[in-house]
């Protein structure tokens, strides 16, 4: 093999390697695939809040109800998630169980926020808790999460 041909092959191999690194980096921006399909991007002019409850034996029989003000917006069983399309601005979400837990978010258009719901140990029964999470944590659990579908709106 001539030197020029070897140099050409070395350049091709280097190019392929660099392109592969770019491919890996782009995975961070790829849509997250859940059991119910890919997580959609926020609607135009709105932000998106993803509530999720990873599968766990703890409190499995209890639902994690998510409210914004009085209305309930989701009731997550174990292994479920729900997406709320939110107008930009401040939103306070809460969950009710043995005690009320609140989480405030400042939603901006085009952004996606992740909120994890856990059922922890309470004195008499489980205590639901909403805590800020992140894309990476949700992505790790996504394949085991199914979209919660509301049966009917509850006041």
């Amino acid at each position: 093999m001539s030197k020029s041909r070897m140099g050409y092959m070395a350049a091709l191999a280097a190019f392929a390697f660099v392109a592969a690194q770019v491919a890996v980096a782009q995975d961070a921006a790829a849509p997250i695939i859940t059991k119910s399909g890919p997580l959609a991007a926020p609607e135009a002019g709105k932000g998106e809040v993803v509530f999720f409850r990873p599968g766990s034996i703890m409190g499995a029989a209890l639902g994690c109800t998510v409210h914004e003000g009085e209305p309930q917006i989701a009731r997550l069983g174990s292994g479920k998630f729900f997406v709320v399309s939110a107008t930009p601005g401040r939103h306070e979400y809460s969950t009710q169980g043995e005690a009320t837990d609140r989480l405030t978010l400042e939603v901006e258009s085009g952004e996606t926020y992740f909120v994890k719901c856990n059922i922890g140990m309470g004195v008499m029964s489980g205590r639901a808790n909403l805590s800020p999470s992140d894309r990476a944590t949700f992505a790790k659990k996504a394949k085991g999460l199914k979209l919660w579908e509301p049966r009917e709106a509850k006041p």
Partner: protein
Amino acid sequence: MLLLEWGLSGAAIFVCMQGAPLPAASPPQQSVAAPSSQVMSGPAQAEAAEPRLVADTSINIQIVDKVSSATAKPGDTFAIRLADPLFADGKIVVPAGTIGRGEVIHAKKSGWGGKAGELIVTARYLEFGTQHIPLGHFHFAASGKSRVNEAFVVTEIIPLGAFLVSGGETIIQPGTLANAKLREDVLVNVQSNGIISP
């Protein structure tokens, strides 16, 4: 050997296509708007000649004050600073080190049963001259890498576990790097270090 070359060429093209950048979700990271081509006179002409920072320009910032879920309350503010200068027309118009303020949106102390403390913060504005440059779209940086001239930013959010969790509390240390975006267009009067309202 020829087959090997063709195979490598094909593989390079395939991998390159796989790694093709996705369409940018935000506007190009330029901090300069092209000046208007209309003929103007007087103050309007002077205003058009001023460098402009466009809305949604990504910037690198650094947390200055320590923020802890043990002591923070919603509404508390803390100092931030510009980590890399902002450029317009190839010149620095807002220097690195420019101070600003961030705000605590949500804070909760750690609880019993090992429940970690919670913190949600955002960047509010940079103080430049007598005006505030409003900021939004705050994210903590994954690696803090930036390219000064291009204002390239890393926008992935790092997991909360990467913060120091001490005694169950969540603490944002001074020096932590983050990204934000300009909320609106800003005309910069470089000579007086003030801001001309957009």
